[in-house]
């Protein structure tokens, strides 16, 4: 089986969230170019393109065209739940796909009700209780509030 079957968030979820935090930290009310995010986060620009098109579809960011174009947040960071971001990038955050191959017997019902449903709820509750603003605050706590000057 190897690594393919291990339970992991995809790179879209991981890199996408990092990129969005980067955007929020560096935006100051203006659009941020993908190339600057790509350089700071060491993620390829073309990969970021696909990530931001998902975030745009979900109504989390909007794009500004032109020479100084880029992306900008639609709402304030305090209004953006991390759960919304991750679900936009990952589809759903359920740990087990309930549609595929679950049998209709007492054993499967018991496992679904007592294990999978509980885990799915815990994951979604956790990411819905954290906002993008919390992540930004965390960023400043780790890097210091003058860290941004260094990176610009």
């Amino acid at each position, binding site marked *: *089986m*190897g*690594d*393919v*079957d*291990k*339970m*992991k*968030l*995809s*790179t879209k*979820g*991981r890199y996408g*969230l*990092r990129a969005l*935090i980067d955007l929020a930290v560096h935006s100051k009310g203006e659009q941020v170019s993908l190339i600057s995010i790509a350089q700071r986060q*060491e993620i*390829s620009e073309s990969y970021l393109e696909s990530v931001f098109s998902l975030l745009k579809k979900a109504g989390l960011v909007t794009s500004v065209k032109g020479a100084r174009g880029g992306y900008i947040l639609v709402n304030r960071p305090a209004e953006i739940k*991390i759960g919304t971001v991750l679900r936009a990038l*990952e*589809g759903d*955050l*359920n*740990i*087990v*796909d309930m549609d595929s*191959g679950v*049998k209709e017997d*007492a*054993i*499967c*019902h*018991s*496992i679904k*009700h*007592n*294990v*999978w449903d*509980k*885990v799915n709820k*815990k*994951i979604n509750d*956790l*990411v819905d209780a*954290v906002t993008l603003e919390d*992540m930004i605050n*965390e*960023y400043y706590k*780790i*890097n210091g509030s003058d860290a941004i000057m260094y990176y610009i």
Partner: protein
Amino acid sequence: MIFSLNKIKYLKIVKWVVKMKISTKGRYALEAILDLAVNSPNEYESVRNVAERRNISENYLEQIFSGLRKKGIVESIRGKQGGYRLARHAEDITAGEVIRALEGSLAPVACVSGGECKQKCDRYDLCVTNILWQKMMNEINTAVDSVTIKDLVEYCTKLETQNDIEYYI
């Protein structure tokens, strides 16, 4: 350039990392353990019988049981009357133990294990998201560790009693 080397490494990882889902191995392991606990709480049960009831191939189930045996969750005897049974009481086995026996760590991202960063990567000091992944992993482990096989058996019994009552009404 170190930078470009890192990029090559990233590309390799990208190919392996898929959606955050428990694989069929972990799911079937839990089904198989519960099947043993419900249908053969004390006796050794053949892989064939469990495979038939669960509609899983015998070969695949044998792999799963062998993984569970290595972790001391089931024990086996060979021979005609051979098979597997729980190595401990159902109340002493958690769902988390069974899932992790086949899935390994339930970390949502590769760089987090045991609730902590596995290694300090070159972005460690700047990593804001690892705190969230660590919390996520703790939530997952707490949830699966709070359920024992006995809890699952009792819920099955309850369901079956309800069904019987409905049938008679």
